[in-house]
């Protein structure tokens, strides 16, 4: 029960932030009434922030429905999903003076996953990397073969991962969103979402701590249909 209440509090905090920002941007629109370029920029920011907030609410709804088993697992072209996420987030990275680089070396093109859930995992990893990267640095997304799986990894260059989150990820999942006070600026809700979705897809999530940042990864089962491509 305590864990559930904590989860609700963290979710409320995460959703309060974009709402507060939208409110301020609405005021900014009024202040910039004569500046057409500024108004366009603010409107674009409002749409982006709304999109991200809606996506987060939608992901939280999906978590509640995971137990119903409504999300079919099927062969998914992982590079296609990664390309879509990076296309969606590239301008957000640019706006925040960060870059996202991609490296594909996987020979196994198809993994067993649910496309929507996998999209959210990649999306949340990337957003997390953007938040925790230092300005003017780049994050790297890599997809490679890893034993009998495909490893998708997103590495940031910023503060190292707090030990408690790393310990939790060593077990293969995030049990609950991290305490707000321990990770200012982010409650770790994105990682929690990514972890829940990965668990559902029978994929392992984990993290590697670096002196100058963190890599989050998910190991996805290779689809047997991948043999058709070899």
């Amino acid at each position, binding site marked *: 029960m305590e864990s559930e209440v904590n989860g609700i509090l963290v979710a409320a905090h995460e959703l309060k932030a974009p709402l507060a*920002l939208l409110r301020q941007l609405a005021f900014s629109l*009024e202040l910039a009434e004569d500046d057409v370029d500024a108004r366009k920029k603010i409107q674009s920011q409002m749409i982006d922030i709304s999109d991200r907030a809606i996506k987060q609410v939608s992901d939280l709804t999906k978590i509640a429905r995971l137990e119903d088993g409504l999300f079919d697992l099927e062969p998914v072209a992982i590079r296609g999903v990664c390309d879509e996420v990076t296309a969606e987030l590239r301008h957000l990275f640019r706006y925040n003076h960060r870059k996202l680089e991609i490296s594909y070396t996987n020979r196994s093109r198809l993994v067993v996953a649910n496309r929507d859930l996998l999209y959210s995992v990649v999306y949340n990893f990337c957003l997390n990397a953007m938040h925790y990267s230092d300005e003017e640095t780049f994050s790297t997304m890599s997809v490679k073969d890893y034993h009998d799986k495909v490893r998708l990894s997103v590495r940031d260059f910023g503060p190292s991962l707090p030990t408690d989150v790393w310990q939790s990820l060593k077990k293969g999942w995030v049990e609950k969103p991290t305490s*707000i006070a321990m990770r*200012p*600026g982010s409650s770790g809700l994105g990682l929690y979402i990514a972890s829940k979705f990965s668990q559902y897809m029978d994929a392992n999530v984990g993290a590697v701590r670096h002196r100058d940042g963190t890599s989050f990864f998910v190991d996805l089962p290779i689809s047997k249909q991948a043999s058709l491509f070899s």
Partner: protein
Amino acid sequence: MIFIIDDDHEMAECIARAVRPNEARIFKDTIAAISALDEGELPSLIFLDILLDGPDGFTFLNELSSYSDTAKIPVVIISSLNLAQKSLENYGVVGVLDKAMMTPKDIQKFVKRELS
């Protein structure tokens, strides 16, 4: 010059718009702001978020109040935390604004009062 210290760049930009035509400088963390202070850039007013990456707003207030040249710089806290201004007055805090409910007029009120 007004300093705005907030790790949410978009929120910081909103505050910067509200303080115009006064010039504002945005910092995403307290380390960068302290570096600017160390270089001799002394602002007339600081808008400070509390929950930040790295050293938090309280650490910054401690640092600020421990030097004679920065101890008197007025600080307005902008945060989602429910903070009582009374308990922070000794640190130069002249006001506390609720990030979720503040308006540009609230911000401008402090600018007018502290810069006049």
